[in-house]
């Protein structure tokens, strides 16, 4: 999805754009109304965000102009004024929604997502491929005028292929496009959906519509020439929001793209060459493009030694981090290596490798690298990608080999053990899991009654859940559905253990939100292999989605963005900002449970405009806008008090929680300064005396 942000507040827009880019949106920025107009006429956008007060051309006029010239995509207005006249004026001008400043990133991105989910308001041209016709308004597909029914995901895939007929979609891109960041399906899910889509198409009389592109992904197969002629030009307009043919989509060059496809792919596809894209010249060009990709992959081995050197630099940094000290020189070398890998791996077809390298580079730019285990996991993941080689479509190595590689990676990555919640009414299965998993670093919490799952999740949050399908009182399917209904457990990997081979049931498993299933009887290599695949992917997805796996709060990376934005708002509107730090000082197992309890206690008490983030394995930070430090701390204290009296107190007799804070502008103007000041003011909260005065340690 491609968005245009028109706002003259550089800092705010920069932060918003970084956040959106991290959520896989493609973002263009214009800092005045006229420039915004130029952008909108030069390229196609799925959504436009407009500030009302803009230099050059004000937001309401720009909105009017966009609507008059036929822009049909959603428009979100940002306004510093809360008077209803302004809102009405904006909505009358054609805006779909408005947001009054100051707002939080979370609120804005939620509105953006909601707008993007709305169905298009205008009559879209139907998309055709031979006798197949997809009507986006009706959400219907017909083949030779006969209705064909597809599942939502199959329909989504089909629409994507038809809208972008020249693009190759990798598994990663399809996951990003068609699944929410909160969901965590595997690539196997994509293969299953593609297979099912093909089968339905074939049954409807449309054969070979979607083709595999070796080592790259899937795309719409070009129609044979005679069919293409008959189809005419009906599909030339591929974007509903286009208001003019793109003339120079990169006018100012500001076009970050986190999509796994390279920047400007759409511009090339929709450019002036489009009218003869099915002709012989276009086919020859497509063949040349494919040849260039193949040549690039063929050249990989020549550059492998240099790439291996860069990977080694990352492993050194990971080892140093695990040992507790990362020398500056090692960090700098690793950062440079990650930067180079980001730029080069995708050239050889490792798009996911480039993405991982970018994450690693971002990680290394943090001022205080506390999350060493996560960093090492990213590096190991990258190593595994490279080990597999550039021919991504090659068959998977034998399960045993993968198991060893994964375990080696995980052992080197982290001293932490993973926790698996196993729910099965068959004691023999639970006993088998308790025997098989611990030697691999996987601790099992066995449960023979599914009704106890919620208590177990609350007291001991797992890294993965294994569910039996048929259980008394509550079936695995119902349990999985309940887990996926709330936000808290959206990204928790859920695997089913089942003896059932019925395709309809397996389909239902995926529909309710399962990530994978394992056939009974359990085979050790397959079990371990699949569990590690899910655990690594689950952690990675949570990192990418900005969620801390333990507490479900924003992780440090996302928290930094949100707290920085709050700080910016505070500066802009001359309001105080209080940063409150809660620290848990406990040995690892207790700290884990305590952090989870503190997170749960605080998350519902934080106002919608404020920010809360898990800063490290033992720290949570809360940013409270327009509130002095004493009040903010009192609020946090009161939220913690009840938790201290119950869950926390039970687990932490004689233990310590620390509460401290700092305020903008009195204690500093940067997040780092405020954090440092807060650390210096550690105040102990003794659970044994929750109503007493906090005492200085």
């Amino acid at each position, binding site marked *: 999805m491609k968005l245009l942000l028109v706002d003259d507040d*550089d800092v705010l*827009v*920069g932060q918003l*754009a*970084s956040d959106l*880019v991290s959520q896989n949106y493609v*973002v263009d*920025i214009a800092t005045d109304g006229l420039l915004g107009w130029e952008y909108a006429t030069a390229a196609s956008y799925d959504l436009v965000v407009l500030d009302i007060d803009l230099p050059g051309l004000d937001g309401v006029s720009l909105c009017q102009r966009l609507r008059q010239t036929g822009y049909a995509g959603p428009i979100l207005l940002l306004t510093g004024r809360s008077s209803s006249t302004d809102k009405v004026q904006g909505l009358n001008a054609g805006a779909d929604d408005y947001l009054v400043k100051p707002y939080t990133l979370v609120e804005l991105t939620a509105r953006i997502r909601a707008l993007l989910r709305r169905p298009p308001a205008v009559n879209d041209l139907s998309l055709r491929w031979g006798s197949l016709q997809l009507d986006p308004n009706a959400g219907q597909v017909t083949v030779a005028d006969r209705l064909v029914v597809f599942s939502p995901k199959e329909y989504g895939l089909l629409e994507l292929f038809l809208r972008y007929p020249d693009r190759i979609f990798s598994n990663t891109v399809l996951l990003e496009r068609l699944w929410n960041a909160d969901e965590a399906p595997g690539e196997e899910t994509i293969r299953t959906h593609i297979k099912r889509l093909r089968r339905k198409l074939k049954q409807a009389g449309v054969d070979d519509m979607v083709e595999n592109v070796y080592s790259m992904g899937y795309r719409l197969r070009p129609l044979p020439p005679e069919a293409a002629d008959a189809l005419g030009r009906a599909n030339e307009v591929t974007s509903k929001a286009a208001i003019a043919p*793109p*003339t*120079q*989509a*990169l006018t*100012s*060059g*500001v*076009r*970050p*793209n*986190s999509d796994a*496809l*390279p*920047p*400007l*792919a759409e*511009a*090339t596809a929709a*450019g*002036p*060459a489009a009218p003869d894209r099915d002709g012989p010249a276009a086919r020859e*060009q497509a063949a*040349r*493009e*494919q*040849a*260039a*990709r193949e*040549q*690039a992959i063929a*050249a990989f081995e*020549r*550059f492998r030694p*240099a*790439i291996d050197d860069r990977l080694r630099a990352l492993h050194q940094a990971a080892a140093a981090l695990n040992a507790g000290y990362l020398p500056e020189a090692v960090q700098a070398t690793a950062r440079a290596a990650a*930067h*180079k890998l*980001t*730029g*080069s*791996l*995708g*050239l*050889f077809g490792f*798009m996911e490798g*480039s993405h991982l390298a*970018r994450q690693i*580079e971002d990680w290394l730019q943090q001022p205080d690298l506390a999350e060493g285990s996560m960093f090492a996991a990213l590096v190991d993941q990258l190593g595994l990608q490279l080990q597999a080689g550039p021919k991504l479509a090659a068959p998977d190595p034998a399960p045993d080999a993968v198991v060893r590689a994964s375990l080696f990676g995980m052992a080197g990555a982290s001293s932490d053990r993973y926790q698996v919640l196993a729910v099965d009414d068959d004691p023999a299965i639970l006993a088998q899991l308790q025997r098989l998993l611990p030697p691999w670093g996987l601790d099992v919490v066995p449960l023979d009654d599914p009704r106890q799952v919620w208590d177990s999740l609350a007291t001991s949050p797992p890294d993965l859940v294994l569910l039996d399908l048929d259980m008394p009182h509550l079936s695995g399917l119902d349990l999985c559905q309940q887990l996926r209904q709330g936000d808290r457990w959206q990204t928790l990997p859920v695997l089913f253990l089942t003896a059932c081979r019925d395709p309809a049931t397996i389909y239902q498993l995926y529909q309710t939100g399962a990530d994978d299933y394992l056939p009974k009887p359990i085979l050790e290599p397959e079990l371990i292999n699949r569990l590690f695949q899910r655990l690594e992917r689950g952690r990675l997805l949570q990192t990418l989605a900005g969620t801390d796996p333990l507490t479900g709060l924003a992780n440090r990376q996302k928290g930094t963005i949100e707290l920085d934005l709050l700080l910016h708002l505070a500066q802009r509107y001359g309001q105080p900002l209080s940063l409150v730090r809660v620290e848990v000082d406990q040995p690892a197992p207790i700290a884990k449970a305590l952090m989870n309890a503190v997170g749960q206690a605080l998350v519902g008490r934080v106002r919608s405009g404020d920010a809360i983030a898990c800063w490290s394995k033992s720290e949570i930070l809360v940013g409270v806008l327009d509130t002095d430090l004493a009040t903010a701390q009192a609020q946090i204290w009161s939220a913690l008090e009840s938790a201290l009296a119950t869950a926390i107190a039970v687990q932490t007799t004689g233990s310590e929680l620390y509460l401290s804070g700092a305020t903008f502008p009195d204690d500093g103007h940067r997040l780092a300064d405020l954090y440092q000041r807060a650390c210096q003011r550690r105040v102990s909260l003794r659970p044994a005396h929750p109503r007493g005065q906090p005492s200085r340690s």
Partner: protein
Amino acid sequence: MTIKRILIIDDEADVREIAKISLEITRQWEVTTAASGEEGVRLASTYHPDAILLDVVMPKTDGLATLKQLSKNTDTCHIPVILLTATLRLATQQTFVAAGARAVLVKPFDPGLLGGQIETVLGWS
């Protein structure tokens, strides 16, 4: 189709090589490469390319310094420069454009599509 002459300046051999392969195969353009900013500035004034792809992060003379030297030289100041960067940071990209780059391309690029992207941003298509 006019055969274009492209100069690629990048200290990383793999990026130079793949960009060269890409442009030669997909567009049949003539491509020359330089492994440093200094070599790039020298080549630009003798080779007279139609466009320059310039890496930002290079040892000694980095992309921005190279860009400055190219724009000071009357032989090369008219040549459009596209900066290649792996950074997604908007503020950084805006700095590059403000410094005189015609466009910024984010690495990694798709070897199949690089030529088309250059044509699009330079209005050659």
